[in-house]
């Protein structure tokens, strides 16, 4: 058994792992990456990307429905979800191949198999033929991500009760679907299956849907969802499921009492659990915070030479947060000057529902809880020319500005393509721009981005178009 020595090894080739490996290689470190399944992790294979492909279909369905506004009368619309799934899988495959190419280009050694730390600086990789290889490196980054959390009363059987994975490869459009959990994943599937034609019920144990979002945003989306026909039950929990005549009978505890519904499928989307078990971490004395690996501001664990990034090291479980941590962790190891720890108020969040939700920084409630004196700005897409012209006048931009310093504490957006707009505020926050400096920016007309400008101006009591 030959030991292979590297400068740095990454376990897991998701958006945290492969980014970290590439950065390490760029900085001149001899780098290896280990992946048990497909390159790109959940993000590329079963998350961000394939769901966006499906949502592309849902968006088109909505366009077709409202085509007559633009003069099109479209009859006899045929929809085959198998083709949509096929498109989704093709995109994933294409991107996965791309990652392989990037790793190769950067001279990163890829090991296919399951990794287990066997000592400090040392791990073994077991491939699918159960061949074991020993690798060592002074720096080992754990980037193993997370998997869907399951409830005992909602066991994923892959047939009736789905996780996100089954929801992405279904061969038929379910007539009815119950989505349990209204975070980003649950809400996106609820919205897209509704738009494709399913009868959707969305439940959450929290008092609002999208529990981490600003109240105003959540309330607005809930109204939009209900208007288009999604049934929403908040403060509700699934009690029991049973399969009856090829359907799932669900008992739901609601504030009004037990409600029983019969659906074709249930999608469990209650959250994610870190993949921190079975890696040999406990044996080496690595400390955990619940099931997440405990790290310092440089993603270092308490055990020398072991680092953790992305979902496995704690939330928010977002690909871009993992990638960012990967870069800062590797650059810190490599001695790059000017590396900063992660500032959690600068992580944007995007939910690709219809309408979309995008946010960064504090919610109004959080800002108030922290005792900041705030000014709130708000501007509706209803007052934006481009939104009206495109027949997407839904949503608003809400800004939370520090009363005295003009700091952009938080921004919350609902509407068409707001996920493409939020980066403007990410840049502004990273550059520590104030309301004053954003007021000076020239936003192009006619675009949706004008609402960003107006929402800032609104917080300064000087919005023009409202």
């Amino acid at each position, binding site marked *: 058994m030959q030991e292979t020595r590297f400068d740095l090894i990454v376990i897991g080739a998701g958006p945290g792992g492969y980014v970290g490996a590439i950065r390490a290689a760029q900085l*001149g470190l*001899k780098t290896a990456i280990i992946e048990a399944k497909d390159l790109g992790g959940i993000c590329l294979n079963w998350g961000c990307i394939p769901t966006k492909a499906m949502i592309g279909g849902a968006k088109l369905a909505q366009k077709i429905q409202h085509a007559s506004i633009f003069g099109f009368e479209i009859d006899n619309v045929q929809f085959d979800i198998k083709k949509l799934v096929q498109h989704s899988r093709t995109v994933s495959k294409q991107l996965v191949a791309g990652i392989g190419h990037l790793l190769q280009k950067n001279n990163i050694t890829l090991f296919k198999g399951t990794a287990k730390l066997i000592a*400090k600086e040392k791990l073994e990789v077991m491939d699918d033929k159960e061949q074991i290889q020993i690798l060592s490196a002074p*720096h080992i980054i754990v980037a193993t991500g997370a998997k869907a959390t399951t409830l005992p009363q909602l066991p994923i059987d892959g047939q009736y009760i789905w996780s996100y994975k089954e929801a992405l490869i279904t061969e038929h459009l379910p007539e009815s679907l119950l989505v349990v959990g209204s975070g980003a994943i649950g809400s996106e599937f609820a919205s897209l299956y509704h738009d494709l034609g399913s009868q959707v019920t969305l439940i959450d144990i929290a008092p609002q849907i999208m529990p981490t979002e600003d109240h105003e945003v959540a309330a607005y989306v809930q109204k939009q969802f209900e208007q288009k026909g999604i049934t929403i039950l908040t403060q509700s929990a699934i009690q029991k499921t049973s399969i009856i005549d090829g359907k799932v009978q669900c008992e739901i505890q609601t504030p009004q009492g037990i409600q029983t519904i019969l659906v074709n499928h249930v999608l469990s989307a209650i959250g994610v659990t870190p993949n921190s078990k079975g890696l040999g971490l406990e044996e080496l004395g690595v400390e955990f915070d619940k099931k997440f690996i405990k790290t310092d501001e440089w993603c270092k664990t*308490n*055990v*020398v030479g072991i680092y953790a990034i992305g979902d496995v090291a704690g939330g928010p479980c977002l690909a871009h947060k993992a990638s960012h941590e990967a870069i800062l962790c590797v650059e810190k190891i490599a*001695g*790059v000057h000017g590396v900063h720890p992660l500032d959690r108020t600068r992580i944007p969040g995007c939910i690709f529902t219809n309408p979309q939700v995008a946010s960064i920084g504090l919610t109004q409630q959080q800002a108030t809880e922290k005792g900041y004196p705030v000014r709130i700005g708000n501007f509706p897409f209803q007052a934006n020319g481009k939104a009206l012209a495109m027949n997407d006048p839904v949503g608003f931009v809400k800004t939370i500005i520090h009363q005295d310093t003009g700091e952009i504490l938080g921004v919350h957006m609902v509407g068409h393509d707001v996920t493409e707009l939020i980066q403007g505020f990410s840049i502004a926050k990273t550059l520590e721009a104030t309301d*004053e400096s954003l007021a000076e920016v020239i936003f192009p007309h006619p675009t949706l981005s004008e609402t960003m400008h107006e929402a800032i101006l609104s917080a300064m009591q000087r919005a023009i178009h409202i």
Partner: protein
Amino acid sequence: MSNIQTLEVPKWGLSMQEGKITQWTIKEGDSFKKGQEICVIETTKIANSLEAPFDGTLRRIIGKNGSVLEVGAIIGVCADTSVSDQKIEQFIQSLSSNKGSEPQEQKTEAKATEPQQTKSPSTPTVTTSKLDTPTSTKPIVNDNFLIPSDLQGYQENSNLFATPHAINMAQKHNVNLDKIHGSGPQQRVSINDIQKAVIAAGGQWPDVKNQPAKTPAKSTADDSHILATPLARRMAEEWNINLNDCRASGSRGRVCKEDVEAVYYRNHPVSSPSLPAATQPEPTKLDFTAIPMDGMRKTIAERLQAAKSEIPHFYLTIDVDVSALQELRTDINSKLPSVKISINDMFLKAIASALIAVPEVNVQYDVENQQILQFDQADISVAVAIPNGLITPIVKAANKRALSDISTTMRDLATRAKTGKLSPDEFQGGSFCISNLGMFGIKQFEAIINPPQGAILALGTVEKRAVVRDDVITIRPMVTLSMSCDHRVIDGATGAKFLASLKEFVENPMAFLA
């Protein structure tokens, strides 16, 4: 006057402070095209060709081959052939008097083997001026002012660009301002310029009171507290502009991009040219690959060639039993999650202890002053292989550090050595050196001394060997150590004493932990 241009040491990257002129590829008198490679300049990181920023003719080389000059220092003077040698000399003189000291010689690296330049900048210009122009007019002497004949002839309506005071004085003393090089913005001629030119040409021009400041004052004050946008700060740093010298026209009194640019273009009236890459002819295919030696490769080649040929090396070899070391290591590593000590780390600690016990080995040879520098603490250089060579980061005061500290320091130094992020003080100096090829299975080797250090220790692999203990053959984990010593400063017995001490520490590690 205005058609004299200078070539300067460029700034390649933020950390570049100075450059070494390794090779001029053109000679004095050659004309060149913008973009043509004219000389090779080496920094601590790279060797690169300087591309001509303009078309011109090289008249004087100021930065000779081998000289090390600061960024921005003038390395050559260019002007087309219509400009007389005399004017070039005057120009060069005005440069050196501006600086107040000779800019190029002080840093020239040793060995003055450069051929004497045909026209040294210090050649008196008065003599050449006589060759140039016949002395038809007498020098004008007026209140201690003496204007050499070839500078005489004030002309009212030429396109003068000079300070009002300079024009007045030129008129008064009949000076031809066309012949004076202006050092001000847009080469405006000041009184000071006239004075320099007159004196340079052998005349007299007494100091005049109330004369304007020599050059626009440049602030040297700390500008870190000056409010500026991130972009403005970065540009100022790149262009070596002090933010104190900039207006602050941005919001909330911040210096912004425009303000820094204003200062830059004030100092650089001709917009700085971009350097287009010269097109290389396609080389013919050969059955080998010519790998150009980069800066580091060349340094290794030069230094080790010198070390191996100049230093009288002798070698001492000893075998040490590392079973106690291994046991201790396993014990520490299994008990403390925050550390992972390697055998190399333990050797570092043992060597540090031995260096303190036998300080005669903890030395540098000061050739120049013929003395041996014996150090109080053990600064151990550790050879680390990196993709295109090697570098020797130093574990400083290893004798005073805890094992865990040595281990953490070494891990960080080795990683940063590979990413090229070590600062010079982290790899320059050191009182002793170690090189470990054990991880490649090398049993024993002799290393070349890294001068001015007096010795280097080569560590081989840990291997189980049959050894005799109490007349019984037994299996022990052993390491062979070879020390190369500079016999000029370390004698055989001293080296042997050190190795014996080291063996003692390695085989009884409690001694260095205590």
